[in-house]
Each structure stands twice: as structure tokens, then as C-alpha cells.
């Protein structure tokens, strides 16, 4: 176990829901290990109870034949509610008895887990997907690969130049050139740039 990592981010501990780990760790991790197995079913229960009210927006056709479009989701959500409350009851009972929950067990095959790094990674992926329709695939892809390489700890300038450029060109050729996929070109000026780039590469 990497002690440094533990000290930096003790939230990591709640992934280990096994008794011995929890017992060995600080109060915050212990609280998380107790809270999460209660919070998850509680959230699902609330969702199952609330969602049926939001199933339809706008006008609905009256008197439809058969069971109607609401029947199946209602049954699914009802069952979800029932099972969530069973789970919640078990967890709350365990909490009262001050027993450690064993219902959720995270993978503990890794010794180190950098939570900060994981969150930055998720942020990068989301930024890529969110920017994609605005700036177009080519720019988003090259930019993402460059930042991702930096984030992954690569500092070799050759790598930082070649991977994004060649990677983007290869992907553009494979998916827009060969497979004829309509990947986003972006909007406005970015659209014009993408078209120019695609013409330059001989894809258009």
C-alpha cells in the first residue's frame, strides 16, 4: 500500500468496504464506507417514486387501447422501488447494529488509486465530447490527444507533435475518408476550417 497516496486522499479508503480496511482507516473513510451503501438505494428509491410523474411532457392522446405507454415503465420503476427499499432496509438495519456493510465491494486489485488524476481525466473526456460538435472532430481530436499526452506524463516534443497530428489525420482518413462517417465538422468558422482541412487532405 502506498502510504503517501493514502495520506493525500483518504477518500480512496471507501472503495475497500472490507471490515479490516475500514477498521484500520480514519474517520472520514469509515463514514463514507457506511454512507454510500445507504445513499445509493435511497437515491434509487426516490428516483423510482418521483420519475413516474415526469414520464410525459405535453399533451397525451386520451383513451389509448391496451395497457398504454406508461404501463411498462411503471412496473419497472415499481420493482426498482421495491428492491431498493429492501436493500435500504438491510443497510439501515446494519447501521443501527453498527455492522459494516458488505453489500458493495469495490475492486481492490490496485494498490494505488489517484483520485485527483481520475477526476481530471474525466473532465478532459467530458470537455472533448462537449466541444466536439462546436469545434469539429479534427480540432477536438488533435487538441484532446495533445492535452491527454501531457496529462499522461509525456514530455517528449516529438511525441507531443506527432501523436496528435498523425493520429488525427489517420482517424480522419479512416472514418471520414474510408468509412464515410459524417463526423462533426463544427459550426461557423470551424465548419469552414474543417471543410478546408478535409479538402487539403484529399478526403473531400
Amino acid at each position, binding site marked *: 500500500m502506498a502510504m503517501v497516496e493514502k495520506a493525500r486522499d483518504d477518500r480512496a479508503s471507501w472503495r475497500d468496504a472490507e471490515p479490516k480496511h475500514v477498521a484500520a482507516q480514519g474517520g472520514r473513510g469509515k463514514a463514507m464506507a457506511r454512507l454510500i451503501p445507504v445513499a445509493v438505494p435511497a437515491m434509487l428509491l426516490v428516483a423510482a417514486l418521483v420519475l413516474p410523474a415526469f414520464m410525459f411532457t405535453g399533451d397525451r392522446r386520451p383513451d389509448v387501447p391496451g395497457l398504454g405507454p406508461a404501463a411498462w415503465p411503471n412496473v*419497472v420503476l415499481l420493482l426498482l422501488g421495491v428492491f431498493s427499499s429492501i436493500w435500504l432496509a438491510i443497510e439501515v438495519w446494519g447501521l443501527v447494529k453498527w455492522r459494516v456493510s458488505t453489500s458493495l465491494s469495490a475492486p481492490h486489485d490496485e494498490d494505488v488509486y489517484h483520485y485527483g488524476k481520475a477526476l481530471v481525466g474525466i473532465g478532459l473526456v467530458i470537455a472533448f465530447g462537449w466541444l466536439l460538435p462546436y469545434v469539429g472532430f479534427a480540432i477536438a481530436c488533435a487538441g484532446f490527444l495533445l492535452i491527454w499526452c501531457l496529462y499522461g506524463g509525456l514530455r517528449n516534443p516529438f511525441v507531443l507533435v506527432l501523436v496528435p497530428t498523425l493520429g488525427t489525420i489517420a482517424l480522419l482518413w479512416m472514418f471520414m475518408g474510408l468509412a464515410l462517417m459524417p463526423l462533426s465538422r463544427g459550426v461557423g468558422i470551424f465548419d469552414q476550417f474543417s471543410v478546408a482541412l478535409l479538402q487539403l487532405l484529399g478526403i473531400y
Partner: protein
Amino acid sequence: MQTIDLLFAGFASAFQIGAFLTVVVGLLVGVIAGALPGISFVNAMAMALPFTYAMNVTHAMLFLGGIYVGGVFGGSISAIMINVPGTPASLPATWDGYAMTKKGQVKRALTIAVTASAVGGLASALMLTFLSAPFAKFAMKFSQPEFFAATVLGLVSVIAIAKDKPIITMISLLSGMAIGTVGVDPLYGQARFSFGIPEVESGIRFVVVMIGLFAIGEVVDLVATDRDLRPKKADGKMAGASFRDIWNVKGAIARGTGLGCMIGVIPGAGATPGAVIAYGVEKQINPRGKEFGTGVEAGLAAPEAAKNATTGAAMVPLLTLGIPGSAATAIMLAAMMLQGVNPGPLLFIMDPSMVYTIFAAMIIANVLMIGAGVGVAQMFSTLMRTPPAILAGFIVILSLIGAYGVRNNIFDVHVCLIFGVIGWAMKRVGFPSAPMVLGVILGPLAERYFLTAVANSRQDYTVFFTRPISATILFLALIFVLWSLWPSVRSRIKRQPA
């Protein structure tokens, strides 16, 4: 003996250089596309469709057939190597296949997977050749109640797979089924849970959910754990599976093949439920069933055999009746119709040489798949030598392209990202994600089979129990639940004698 003569003629034309190359190219395209995270064989077949315009009908079918056979297997390469299923049907391959990789047995896992897939595929290609007529007749006895019963069997086997935590598995499965209800409903054409946003009316597709839950979450873990995917020196020396290893799992392969052949004929089901049901059944039957999930060969072989066994079986209704049962066979139908050929009973009478060339090609493709699979796996293990950061970056991009390519819709990319975050969080707290994906796949199927069956029997809800085949399947599903839950119930009774 007419069949044999026709088949020999079929082999003769399939071995002509042009036809043979078409199959090989299709197979390679399929395996590579399948192995790329995010790009599924359905994606690959849809992308390949314009290329078939220039071919004759037979070559078009050989090409698409090759992609289909190769792609259904290919998904398991990335499932075994990096724990990211290339297609939903390879989900079970992550359970025991990736566990074997973690033990340093990646070559063994790949060899077992490709052999089991080839055996399953070959058996179903032979079934397609020799038994398609009786099978088609049998398939016509199936209607909506039977499809619903089969879907229930699929849902039940999901619970059987994770029997130690039935409640949480149920919750995950039901969440997936709830996610599957988003969008326009299958019968009434009404938008559900759209919250007034037109894009949401498109609904949430299972492939997109799978890519989000598995690929994105896994990539983030890859960089956050300093995991090194580069093959260690020891792996290089590690031998692949010996003939003995394969022989040891012959039972699992046989059972998987049988189940796959049966399930493949059912429209709408296809490779994923086939693989999952086979895994569930094998876990019950196999003496080492309790160890499944820790890298047991049989736990990899059974679903692998089953998913490829669905390929030939799914083509039975297409070629004999002209009815496509899945997205993959619908694309094949489109390729034929675009060339002015209508599959169906008349095709066997009017152009038997074409039909038998397709049969022969399916057989050849499954045999060649062993070579193609090993070759591509080798190529991928070379790719794994690149630094994990670069590899992870490309997996992200391919995954989002794959999500986009499902319907060429940016909405699917956004859905994929949301499920990426959810999947990552689920993994960190240990909430199982596989049942959720299966819920998204099977939930919408169950809904429309149920509602259409009820409408077709004029609102008679007993139809599921009064039809013999449907009743039998539902009874089997019940037995299956009891059988799989019994050990945990028994141990609980023993522990707390009350």
C-alpha cells in the same frame, strides 16, 4: 444428397480467388473493427454497405458475412486484453477472460476464446447448411409470447450469474430496464422521459450505454492506477492453450454452441443474450462454477462459443424466410435488396448456387477465423507496447466515434459521456454494471414482446402460459432461478437455524 452436391459447388465458387479474397478481407475488417473499443460489428457492417454496391450479390454477402463472423469474435480481443468489450456480446469475456489476463495468461485466454468461437460458429454454419429448412419451420412456430419467454430467460440468467448478491443485481438490472424505457415507446409512438427535449425522444441505445460504462470508466482507471498494459517479459514466453486445454473445456464449448444455435434463431435476441445465457447456464452446470469470474477456462469458452453460434443461426430466418432478426442481418437484407435480390423461399429455388456459396463461405470464414483472430490479437499486443497514456487517449476517441456511429447522432456521444461518469462511480463503489447493460438490451425487447403478444391475443394475459413452447420456456426460467438461488438460500438457512 442434393445438398452435398450443391455445397460442393458452393465451395468451388467460394474458393475462386475473388470470392475467397472477399471473405478474407471481410473477416479481417470484422476482427479489427470488433476489437477496436467502441466500434461494433454492426457499425462495421453499416460502414461496409456502400462498398458492396460495386460487387455482385454473392460477393456482397460474402463480404458482409465475413465482417459479421469476424466482428462477433473480434470484440473479445479487447475484452480479454484491456477489459473493454469491443461489442456487447463480448461482455462475458471480460469476466473470466480478463481475469486470466491478470494472471498473465493472456495468450491462453485468447487461444481458448478464438477456438471456442470458431467451433461455435462452424457448428452453426453447418446447421445453417443442412438444417435451415426444418429450423425455419420450427422458428415459424415462435411468435411474440415465445420471444417474451426467451427474453425472460435472458433476464433470469443475469440474476443467476451474480447469485451471491441477488438484490443488488436485480437493482442494477431494473435500473437498466428503466433506462431502456427512455424515448419513443415501441407501440404507441409516445415519448417517455423526454422532459420536453426533442433529442431525448431518440431514446438510449444499449451500445452507447455499454461504451460509456465500460470503455470510459476503464480508461480513467487505466491512467489513475498507473497500470501498465505492456506485456511483461514472462507473458511472451507463456505458451498459448494446448490442445489439452481446449479438450478440457469441450463440454462448455458444446453447451455454449447448442444454446447459441437455439437463441440465434429468435429474432431480436442475437449474440449478447446468447452469450449471457450460456455463461449463466455454464456457471450452474460446471463443477468449477463457483470459481467463475476468477479466470476459469470454461467460463470463457461457453459464452464465446455461444455468441459465434448465433451468427449462422441468425441467418436462417434471413435466407429461408427473408426476415432479418437482428441489426446485422437487416444490413445483409439491405445489401441484397439494393441489388434487386429478395431473400426468401424462392431464393433457394431460383438461385441455389448463390445460397450454397454463402453457406460455404460461412463455413470457410469460421475456419479461417482462428488464423485471423490470432493474427489480429498479435497485432493488438504489439499496439499495447505504446505508452498507456497514448493508448488510453485513442480508446477514448474510438469509443466516442463508436457511440456517435451507432446513429450518427451527437446526442449519443453525450449519453455515452454521462454513462462514462456513472460507470466510473459505479466501479469505485462496487455497484455491478454488467446487469445494467443487459437490462438496457433486454428491457425494451421484453416490453414490446409482451405488449404485442397481449394485443395479438386480444388482451388475453394467459397467452404466455397457454401456448406450449412459451409455457415451457417460462417454466425453465423459473427452474433456473430456483436452481441458481438454492445454494445461497440453503447456506443462509444452515447459518441461522430458525
